[in-house]
C-alpha cells in the first residue's frame, strides 16, 4: 500500500513537472498567437496586435502565466482556444472519437492480419515463401504513407470510383437513416484504416515471427513433439501462448498513441482528429489547446506507466516489497 501511495505522490509531481516544461517550451518558441492576425496584413496595426497580446495575458511574466494556468487546470478549466474562442475541452472531446475509432480499427486490423502472417513466417522460416513475405512487408513498411495514400485515393476513388476519396461522412450525412449512416462511415473508413494499418503490419508480424521462432526452439517444444503431439497442438497449444505474451507488453505501450492520431493521415483524408487539432494549434500558437492536448498525453503516459508498474508489482513480489528484502 505504502508503495502505491509513494508512486501516486510521485506521479502528481511528475505531472506538474511535465506541464511546466511543456508550457515553457511552447511559450519560448518564437512567435505568438497574435501572429496569425497580423500575418502581413497592412490593415492590422501594431497597436491592435499589442492590444490582443494584453487581452490574452501574454504580456505578463512566463511564470505568472503558468501559475494562473496551473491554478485553473486544478479545477479542470483548460481555458478557451485563442483561435476560435471555444473551450479547449470541447475541442478535444470532439476530436477524440474519430481518432480513437480509426486507431482502434487499424490496431485490430494489424493484429488480425499481423499475427497470422507472423505465424506463417515462423512456421515456414527460411523458405522462399517466408522470404517473399518478408520482402512484401518490408516494402509496405518503407512506403511513404502519404504517397501510398494518394495513389490509393486516386486509384480507388477517382479511377474506379468504388470508394470515397476523403472525409468520414458523405455530404448530406444528416439526412440519412441510422443504418445508412453506419454504412457510410464504414465506407469512408476503408481506405484510411487499411492504409494506416499497412505500416504497422510489418512491425507486429515481424515481432510475432521472431518470438515464435525463439519459442519453437525451446526445450518444452521439443518435449511436446517428442511425446507425439500433433504439430497443430504443439504450435497453437504450447508455442503460441508463450510467443504472444511479449506482444501484450508492446500493445500496452501503444495505448497513449491511440489518441495521438496522425497528422499526415488526417490531413490527406480530411479527418478532423487529434493529430490535426494539435498540428494546427502548434502552427497557430494556440497555447491553451496545445497545453490541453499535452496534458492529455501526459496523463495517458503516466497512467500507462503506472498500470505497467502495477502489473509488474502484482506479478513480482520483489518489486512490491522493495527494501524489505
Amino acid at each position, binding site marked *: 500500500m505504502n508503495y502505491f501511495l509513494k508512486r501516486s505522490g510521485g506521479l502528481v509531481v511528475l505531472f506538474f513537472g511535465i506541464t511546466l516544461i511543456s508550457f515553457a517550451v511552447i511559450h519560448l518558441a518564437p512567435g505568438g498567437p497574435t501572429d496569425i492576425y497580423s500575418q502581413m496584413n497592412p490593415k492590422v*496595426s501594431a497597436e491592435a496586435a499589442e492590444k490582443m497580446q494584453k*487581452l490574452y495575458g501574454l504580456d505578463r511574466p512566463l511564470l505568472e502565466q503558468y501559475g494562473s494556468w496551473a491554478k485553473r487546470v486544478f479545477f479542470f478549466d483548460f481555458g478557451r482556444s485563442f483561435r476560435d474562442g471555444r473551450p479547449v475541452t470541447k475541442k478535444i472531446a470532439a476530436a477524440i472519437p474519430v481518432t480513437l475509432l480509426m486507431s482502434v480499427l487499424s490496431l485490430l486490423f494489424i493484429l488480425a492480419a499481423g499475427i497470422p502472417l507472423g505465424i506463417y513466417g515462423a512456421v515456414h522460416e527460411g523458405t522462399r515463401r517466408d522470404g517473399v513475405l518478408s520482402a512484401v512487408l518490408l516494402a509496405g513498411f518503407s512506403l511513404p504513407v502519404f504517397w501510398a495514400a494518394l495513389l490509393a485515393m486516386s486509384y480507388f476513388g477517382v479511377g474506379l470510383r468504388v470508394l470515397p476519396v476523403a472525409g468520414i461522412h458523405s455530404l448530406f450525412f444528416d439526412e440519412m437513416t441510422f443504418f445508412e449512416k453506419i454504412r457510410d462511415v464504414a465506407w469512408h473508413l476503408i481506405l484510411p484504416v487499411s492504409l494506416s494499418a499497412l505500416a504497422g503490419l510489418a512491425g507486429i508480424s515481424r515481432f510475432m515471427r521472431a518470438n515464435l521462432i525463439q519459442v519453437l526452439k525451446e526445450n518444452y517444444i521439443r518435449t511436446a513433439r517428442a511425446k507425439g503431439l500433433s504439430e497443430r497442438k504443439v504450435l497453437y497449444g504450447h508455442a503460441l501462448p508463450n510467443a504472444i505474451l511479449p506482444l501484450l507488453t508492446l500493445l500496452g505501450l501503444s495505448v497513449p498513441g491511440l489518441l495521438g492520431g496522425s497528422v499526415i493521415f488526417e490531413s490527406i483524408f480530411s479527418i478532423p482528429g487529434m493529430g490535426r487539432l494539435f498540428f494546427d494549434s502548434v502552427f497557430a500558437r494556440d497555447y491553451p489547446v496545445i497545453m490541453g492536448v499535452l496534458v492529455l498525453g501526459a496523463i495517458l503516459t503516466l497512467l500507462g506507466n503506472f498500470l505497467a508498474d502495477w502489473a509488474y508489482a502484482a506479478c513480482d513480489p520483489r518489486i512490491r516489497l522493495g527494501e524489505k528484502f
Partner: protein
Amino acid sequence: MRVRNRAFFLFLFLFSAPVFASADERRGDAFVTSSIAEPSNLIPFLASDSASAEVSRLLFNGLVKYDKNLKLTGDLASDWDIEEGGLVIVFHLRKNVRWQDGEPFTARDVAFTFRALTNPSVPTPYGGDFEKVVSLETPDPHTVRVRYKEPFSPGLASWSVGIVPEHLLKDADWPATGFSRNPVGTGPYKLVQWTSGEKLVLRANPDYFEGAPFIARVVYRILPEPTTAFLELETENIDSAALSPLQFKRQTGTPFFKTHYAKYAFPSFSYTYIGYNLRNPLFADKKVRKAIGLAIHKQEIIDTVLLGYGRAATGPFLADGWAADPAIGPSGFDPSRAKALLAEAGWRDTSGDGILDRGGRRFSFTILTNWGNTDRKMACEIIQKRLRDVGIEMNIQTLEWSVLLREFIGKKRFEAVLLGWQLSPEPDPYDIFHSSKTGPGQFNFVSYKNEEADRLMEEARRIFPEAERAKIYHRLHGILSEDEPYTFLYVPESLVALHRRFKGVEPAPAGIGHNFIEWYVLKNERKYR
C-alpha cells in the same frame, strides 16, 4: 431580309432560353466548395483568416462594398455624402433590411458595430482603421454620421466591414463564441450547420434585400490537403477549387475535366517582391538595388514558377487598378547595365573569385522567405543564379512564418526578404511605405524614407475623388519605381475551376464571385436537392 430576321429571332430564342428561365425555375441545387482551413470565427471583425472572411462575406453586409469593377458602391447604405471637406461621411441606410431573425436593421446596429470595433476588450485586428473616427452619430434610424479627426479617404472603404446585430450581441462576452458559431446577419445566406473540422452548410436567405440567391445551399468542405481537394474535384464531389499552376496547365486537360469544369484565370490581389533592409549599408545605395532589379529576369520566374500564369509587377498597386500608373513598366532585364551600376557604386571583383567586393567586403547576402511556400523558394533559387551571373552571392534561408516575422523582420535583423503583400481595392500604401511606420511590428520594415513620397501619401489620404487621388498615386508609383526600396517581382494569377452546371458566371476585374447570388443551375442539370 425578313427571313434572315426571323432566323435571327429563332436563334435568339433558342440560345437565350436559359436567360429567360423564371426566377423560381433557377432556384435550387447546392454549391459545394472546399476550404483549406477551418474558419476560426464568423464575426466579421474578428474573422482575420481568409477561410473565415470568405464564409462571413455571405452572412453579413457592410455599409459599402466593391462592385465587379472594384468601385465602391452601396451595400447596407444606399448611398453616402462627404461633408465638411471630407471630415464627415454621412451614410444613408437602406430601409426594409431585416436581420435573419426578423428584427429590422437600423443605424443602432452600425453604432454598436463601431463601439465593438473600438472596444479594448474585443480582440479585433481591424480597429486601426477606426482610430481616426472622432464620433459616430445616428440622427435617425437610417442615417449614420461619422466624423473624422482629419479627412481620411481610405476610411470610406473600411466601412465595408460586416455590420453585426446589436440586439443579439449587446450583452456578449467577447469573443462571443455563441454568436460566432451561430451568426445572424443580413446577408444572402445563413449558417445552418457547422461540423468542426468537416464542413459548414449555408442556406439561402429568402428575405435577402437584394433578392434571394438562386443557389439554395452552399457547402464549405474543409480539405486541408490541396491534393485531396483536386482528387475530390476529379470525382465531382466538389464544384469549385483553387488550382495550382501545374494543375491548371497540365492536369486538367482530360476530356472528363473539360466537359465538366470551366477554368478561370485572373490577376490575384497580391504581389511578390524583394524587400531590402535599407538600414543595411549594402543596400543603402540606390544603384545597388537597381542593379539587382536589372539582374533579375522576371518573366523567367513567371514562366518557371507560375508556368506563365502571372505578370511582372511594377509597383504596390492592384495591377489593373486606378491607382497604378499604366505607363510604368517593370524594371527590365539587363545584366550588363546591372554590372555597370554596381561598378559605379564601387563594387569590383578584385580578388578574382567571381564575386564582387569593395573595401575588402564581398558582395554576399542572405535572403529570407517563409517556409512552406515552394513558389517563393523556387523564385529565390532562380534569382540566386541570376545574381551570381553579375557577381553577387545570395544565400537562401527559409524560416517558419512566426519566427521570420518576430525574430527577423520585427527586429530588423535581415538583409533582404522575398515575400508577398495581399492587396485590397483601396490602394493606400501608407502603412507600408510611410516613414512614420518603421517602428517595431510596423509594416515599413525596410525603413523606406522619402520626403516627397511621405507627402504624397499624406495628401492622398485627405482627398476623396478617385481621379484626383489617382494622379497622386501615379506620381508615387513613379517614385517607388525609381527608388526601388522593393524590387517588384510578379503578380500571380488566381486559378479556379468551376463546375459547368453553374450559369450566370461573369468574370470581371473582381473575379468570378462578385455576382454569386445570381448564379443558377438549370433544373435538368441539378445535382443536389
